[in-house]
């Protein structure tokens, strides 16, 4: 081979070797650490769990790795072998299903929080405390989460159906359907809709609800039970059980959850 | 030393059937009209076109036959393209050194400085291609090809993309190459003027076939070939500067048949030169012309008389001192003077062009 070609090939080979070494070192995962729990948590509870995690870590000496996402996405991923130890879902269906399919440990499922649906507007006088504004019809758009994949969205649909407004609102195209509960909240917060059905946890700081709001009677919708379940493929069952127990029984945990706008199962 | 070629290539719109030999020295022009296949032949010689049925042999070495195909980069040739095709990412020096570096030191016969000198590139070495004029680029391209110390130099219409001035600039360099280097050159062109200036032999290509091959003197004047019937048809004579006449501002070129006077040139006595005499500038006389203003008169004997394209004219080929001279005269004069093969007469040359 000619000189210049030889030189450029040697240089190229050296660069290649360096790259390969780097690649190998980066591809290998971090060193395994004991007592680290991989928790998959529904987006709506993520913020709350971020507040709870340090308390648990202090109490137990174990670390929580939080992965936020949508329950549907987690379900798919868990079926495909995702390395989570615990799932804190936004509903009770998915954990039930996982249990049935043997992907969740039977008997480990429990309701860690119960959500509350609220019709909300950031502005003070828009929503009255009895929800009569809905019947009045003096609004352009209401925001809801997608009933097909968000439990709060399904609950909103149930409320509107019970009030006999679901068909009308759909026909008049007065519903803005967000991909998830956060989007619904964004619609209202940014003024793009007059009001939205959101989670109480999003608009309450434990004492008061911002703006103006209406709490639909619990009877109008299926309880927004959020269930947790330990996943069968966990290698840290004891720690997972300790975490769920803490979540259920620890007074600090319960207080934090309530302060975030959820109920707990009695 | 020679190049033996046998190419048979059939395409829907074009057939190439070339079987010929190129001499191993001097410049051979591969001449023909546009589209006759000249560039294709050159590319086949170089291995840039891969033709299924072709045989290319250089100095006994097989470059291509039914069983073998030596790729271009292994053939010891240089190639100058019609458009200079300098590498845009290298400066002139980089371009020149590209081939040089890839030739083992032991095989290099032309040095960097030598090639730069031949082509007059001293001041251009750090320039980039886009900063150069067309003529300058071609000079770089030629030098670049030379620096691979090729055993055969192929040039594909190197001047046709240049303007007249640039062409004039380069031709002297080519002539110098011809004189100073012993590399055989195959020079593709459709411009008879260029060919007349530098070629030693001509291979005439017509519609994908070799029509004829021979020395330039012969090919230009053969009445059966289209070359003698071109507007610019003429004859070539290779001679030497014999004498200068400062008083009348003349130089004399000695050829076999005698002497030709041209305008005074600065060339030294003894220098080899080539002159061109256009057929239309030659008139004939049966008797030695008296009291005529024409200075250049050569005695000769008629070889043949043929019809010209123009029905009013005839082409007369005359042997002067062993070399053919072409004259174009009116049919009427030819008849009246009874110009026929064997007749001894005097050729009056109105204008002699020195090829420099």
């Amino acid at each position, binding site marked *: *081979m*000619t000189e*210049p*070609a030889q030189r*450029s*090939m040697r240089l*190229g080979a050296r660069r*290649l070797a360096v*790259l390969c070494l*780097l*690649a190998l070192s*980066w*591809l290998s*995962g*971090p060193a395994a650490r004991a007592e680290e729990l*991989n928790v*998959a948590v529904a*987006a709506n509870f*993520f*913020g709350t769990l971020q507040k709870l995690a340090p308390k648990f870590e202090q109490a137990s000496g174990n670390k929580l*790795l*939080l*992965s*936020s*996402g949508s329950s549907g*996405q987690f379900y*798919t*991923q868990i079926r*495909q*072998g*995702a*390395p*989570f130890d615990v799932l804190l879902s936004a509903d009770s269906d998915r954990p039930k299903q996982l249990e049935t399919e043997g992907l969740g440990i039977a008997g480990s499922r429990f309701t860690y929080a119960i959500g509350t649906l609220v019709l909300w507007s950031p502005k003070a006088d828009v929503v009255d405390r009895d929800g009569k504004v809905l019947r009045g019809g003096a609004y352009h758009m209401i925001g809801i989460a997608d009933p097909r994949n968000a439990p709060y969205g399904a609950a909103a649909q149930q409320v509107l159906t019970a009030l006999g407004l679901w068909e009308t609102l759909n026909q008049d195209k007065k519903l803005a359907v967000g991909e998830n509960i*956060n989007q619904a909240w964004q619609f209202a917060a940014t003024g793009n809709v007059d009001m939205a059905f959101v989670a109480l946890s*999003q608009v309450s700081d434990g004492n008061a609800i911002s703006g103006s709001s209406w709490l639909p009677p619990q009877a109008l919708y299926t309880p927004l039970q959020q269930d947790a379940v330990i996943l069968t493929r966990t290698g840290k069952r004891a720690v997972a059980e300790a975490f769920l127990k803490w979540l259920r029984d620890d007074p600090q945990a319960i207080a934090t959850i309530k302060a975030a706008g959820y109920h707990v199962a009695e | 030393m020679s190049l033996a070629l046998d190419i048979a290539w059939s395409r829907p719109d074009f057939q190439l059937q070339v079987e010929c030999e190129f001499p191993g020295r001097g410049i051979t022009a591969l001449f023909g009209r546009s589209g006759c296949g000249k560039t294709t032949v050159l590319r086949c010689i*170089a291995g*840039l076109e891969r033709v299924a049925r072709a045989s290319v042999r250089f100095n006994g070495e097989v470059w291509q036959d039914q069983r073998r195909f030596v*790729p*271009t*980069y*292994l053939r010891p*040739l*240089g*190639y100058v*393209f019609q*458009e*200079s*095709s*300098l*590498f*845009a*990412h290298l400066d002139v020096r980089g371009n020149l050194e*590209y*081939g040089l570096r*890839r*030739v083992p030191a032991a095989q290099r016969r032309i040095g960097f400085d030598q090639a730069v000198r031949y082509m007059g590139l001293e001041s251009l070495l750090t320039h980039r*291609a886009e900063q150069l004029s067309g003529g300058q*680029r071609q000079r770089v391209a030629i030098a670049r*090809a030379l620096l*691979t110390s090729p055993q055969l130099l192929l040039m594909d219409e190197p001047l046709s993309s240049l303007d007249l001035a640039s062409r004039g600039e380069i031709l002297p360099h080519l002539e110098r190459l011809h004189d100073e280097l012993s590399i055989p050159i195959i020079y593709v062109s459709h411009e008879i003027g260029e060919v007349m200036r530098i070629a030693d032999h001509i291979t005439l290509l017509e519609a994908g076939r070799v029509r004829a091959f021979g020395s330039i003197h012969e090919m230009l004047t053969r009445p059966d070939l289209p070359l003698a019937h071109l507007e610019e048809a003429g004859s070539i004579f290779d001679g030497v500067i014999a004498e200068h006449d400062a008083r009348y501002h003349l130089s004399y070129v000695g050829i076999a048949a005698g002497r030709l006077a041209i305008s005074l040139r600065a060339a030294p006595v003894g220098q080899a030169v080539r002159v061109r005499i256009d057929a239309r500038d030659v008139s004939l006389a049966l008797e030695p012309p008296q009291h005529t203003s024409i200075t250049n008169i050569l005695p000769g004997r008629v070889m043949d008389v043929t019809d010209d394209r123009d029905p009013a004219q005839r082409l007369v080929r005359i042997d002067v001192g062993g070399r053919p001279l072409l004259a174009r005269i009116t049919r009427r004069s030819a008849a009246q003077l009874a110009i026929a093969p064997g007749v001894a007469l005097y050729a009056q040359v109105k204008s002699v062009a020195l090829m420099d």
Partner: protein
Amino acid sequence: MIESFYSPDDLVALWISLKLATLTVALLLLLCTPLAWWLATTRSRLRVVGEAMAALPLVLPPTVLGFYLLLFLGPYGWGGRLMHHLGLQPLSFSFGGLVIGSMLYSMPFVIQPLQGAFQAVGARALEVAATLRAPPWDRFFTVAVPLARRGFITGSVLAFAHTLGEFGVVLMLGGNIPGRTQTASIVIFNHVEALDYSGAQRLSITLLVACFILLLIVYGANRHRAEVAAVA
């Protein structure tokens, strides 16, 4: 000081994103250069097929791509089972899996500029190099590659930026695991979901500024090279 400006998650995620983008670009350049060269120079009829396949990731929604990759690389898919045979962990939910996903997702951004650049080199420059005694590999590295430089740069920059901003594939295939597959783009999303807009902005602006500086450096270093034609 930096530690107090960003949350620790932020820094780790930034690092993962940078690693991911760099590795993806490096591997893509390695893989796509011969591919782009083939696409640019072949006269085979398969070329159209190759071009379509190379462009396919552009058309697929990222989440769909992520989903299919999850199926393929997961323990029940071919990829996962192969890894199992080799005694290795499946690539889903790992950094390695993200690299593969990113490579697929950003591949068109490397192949297309490279192919264009190689095509612009044209046959003539390489013919010239052959007449100057350069064998095929030599011609490729000393003529085609330098002349295609702009393509390499464009492709690298595009793929780098694209990978940094990647979300759907990473989320689905990676599982959003902190320290392993949680990239900066996901953390930004998390901040938004948690209604921590200032946190989201901090990280977003960081990414923006970093990318902008990178682009300035890359294009600045290349401002001299304004080659239009491969040969002159």
